């Protein structure tokens, strides 16, 4: 069956450290993968899109990698801040241009 897996346990890190979140998928062959941020009680906010022929994409303190062989994307936040605390959702296109979301990983950055 098709699955998108993100760590359901919260990631708890110290301010200033690099946060690394994982997104694994099975039985998909996405050409594109996106990452969104969601704060409690709010809608998701788009962060980054990466194409299958891109190994890495950066935006300010954010970096995303996409390994189609491992069927995995990693999302990094460098020099993390308490304001980065949120749930981060991985999403990919599962066919028919329909965006399929993972269940998200909650990030907690301690001051």
């Amino acid at each position, binding site marked *: 069956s098709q699955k*998108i897996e993100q760590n*359901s346990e919260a990631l708890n890190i110290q301010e200033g450290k690099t946060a690394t979140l994982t997104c694994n998928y099975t039985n998909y062959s996405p*050409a*594109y993968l*996106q990452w969104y941020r969601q704060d409690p*009680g*709010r*809608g*998701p*906010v*788009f962060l980054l*899109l990466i194409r299958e022929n891109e190994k890495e994409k950066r935006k300010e303190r954010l970096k995303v990698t996409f390994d189609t062989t491992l069927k995995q994307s990693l999302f990094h936040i460098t020099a993390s801040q308490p304001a980065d605390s949120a749930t981060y*959702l991985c*999403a990919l*296109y599962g066919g*028919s*241009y*329909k*965006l*399929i*979301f*993972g*269940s*998200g990983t909650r990030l907690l950055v301690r001051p």
Partner: protein
Amino acid sequence: EAEVAQSPRYKITEKSQAVAFWCDPISGHATLYWYRQILGQGPELLVQFQDESVVDDSQLPKDRFSAERLKGVDSTLKIQPAELGDSAMYLCASSPTGTGTYNEQFFGPGTRLTVL
């Protein structure tokens, strides 16, 4: 900055009642999406519109849910009758380009539905 508007933000209803949610996408956005998000899970697509036409409603429980976007602008999602299992966040999103593209989606704040 343009935003997707949704109302109401919160709705409490009793089972078997009818509820309706409204969404106004960012001006000029041709594609509109309705998602349902259960607590602790990611959003799940219910229906996608391209202008006023339904592109995908394969996950919409059509026996009780309906959606329309009559003039290709704002949209309404209705549930009748509501069931306990419908309690969730209902999210509307829009995208500037049409079906067949991979652009970002802009989400509204959502409507939190509680069915008692």
